[in-house]
């Protein structure tokens, strides 16, 4: 399931400014634990940001995206009160979706 994301979607002129923080370890698979054993890779692979049934951003990530990932982008065509949802899936098949309403700038 994962922990809740922090999503902000705010009007900036005629665009929607989206900032997303995700709670995820983003283990590289290169790190060793206290016992000298490799900690298996565990990271978000796919992300989709949806608005009004359309994908406004999608991404594929490797383990080099920083722990507790952050992304920031802008899209056109959104209005105050409409929903923006973010879904991620990781390499263990875990996934999480959160959504927020667009707020005034």
């Amino acid at each position: 399931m994962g922990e809740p994301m922090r999503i902000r979607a705010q009007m900036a002129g005629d665009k929607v400014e989206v900032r997303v923080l995700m709670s995820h370890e983003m283990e590289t698979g290169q790190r060793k634990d206290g016992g000298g054993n490799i900690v298996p890779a565990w990271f978000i692979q796919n992300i989709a940001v949806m608005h009004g049934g359309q994908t406004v951003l999608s991404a594929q990530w490797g383990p080099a995206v920083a722990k507790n990932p952050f992304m920031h982008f802008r899209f056109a065509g959104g209005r105050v009160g409409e929903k923006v949802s973010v879904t991620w899936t990781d390499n263990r098949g875990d996934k999480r979706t959160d959504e927020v309403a667009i707020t005034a700038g």
Partner: protein
Amino acid sequence: MTRPHKPVVAALLFAAGLLFGTGAHSQDSTAKALQEYRDALQDGNPAELWEIKGEDMWQQPRGPNKVSMEKCDLGLGPGVVKGAYARLPKYFKDTDRVDDLESRLVHCMVSLQGYTRAEATRRVFGGPGAAADMEALVAYVSSQSKGVKMNVALAHPREREAYQMGQKLFYYRGGPHDFACATCHGEDNKRIRLQDLPNLTSKKDAQRAYTTWPAYRVSQGELRSFQWRLYDCFRQQRFPELLFGSDASVALTMFLARNANGAAFAAPAIKR
């Protein structure tokens, strides 16, 4: 959005100079570049993930009694969170002791939610893959004092006593290295490796240091509370373990928090 303060980085400059070339010009540009890096981290501080989790935990009925923390009195009345952190530690009549935020949260988890003390303090610091509920609560409560001026009182005799005990602890030398807090934090321009250390005996540094904890610690990927900050300083000094919420830890917090009075609280922050 908090702006990090200008770094006091003579030490950092020196070390960075070794890495990236020397001379006054490159030192200036290195300091400027590091400042740009620190500024860049301010937008999207992962501490916010702990804040939303802590807010949820505050509101959810939890523990054997299935009640929320919303009746917890952090000093400004039951359930008042806004501005509470900027006035802690303080004396509480019901516990008849000076409490900091963390010891007060333990008190509420025990008295309201019905946890045992052992349950409430089982995991107070998070580690890889296992975040601590306590640090989430601390993140939420402290975030509600952002921008509020530190205003820690020394009105009650017990508060004055705690401050004096904290001051003594700050200067107390001991351990195998004959160290005190003041050994590292009593003069300007001290450092550990590349890290510049605040001189906690100067008003400006004391204010900046206290008002930027709790913080998301990049190197650990964790939100760290002020209790953790002190715990880890004691570990680095090779002192006996500083027990969570102990009188000693609260007294030292009282000394440092009071010395930050007048400065706007600016945490949870983000640090290297």
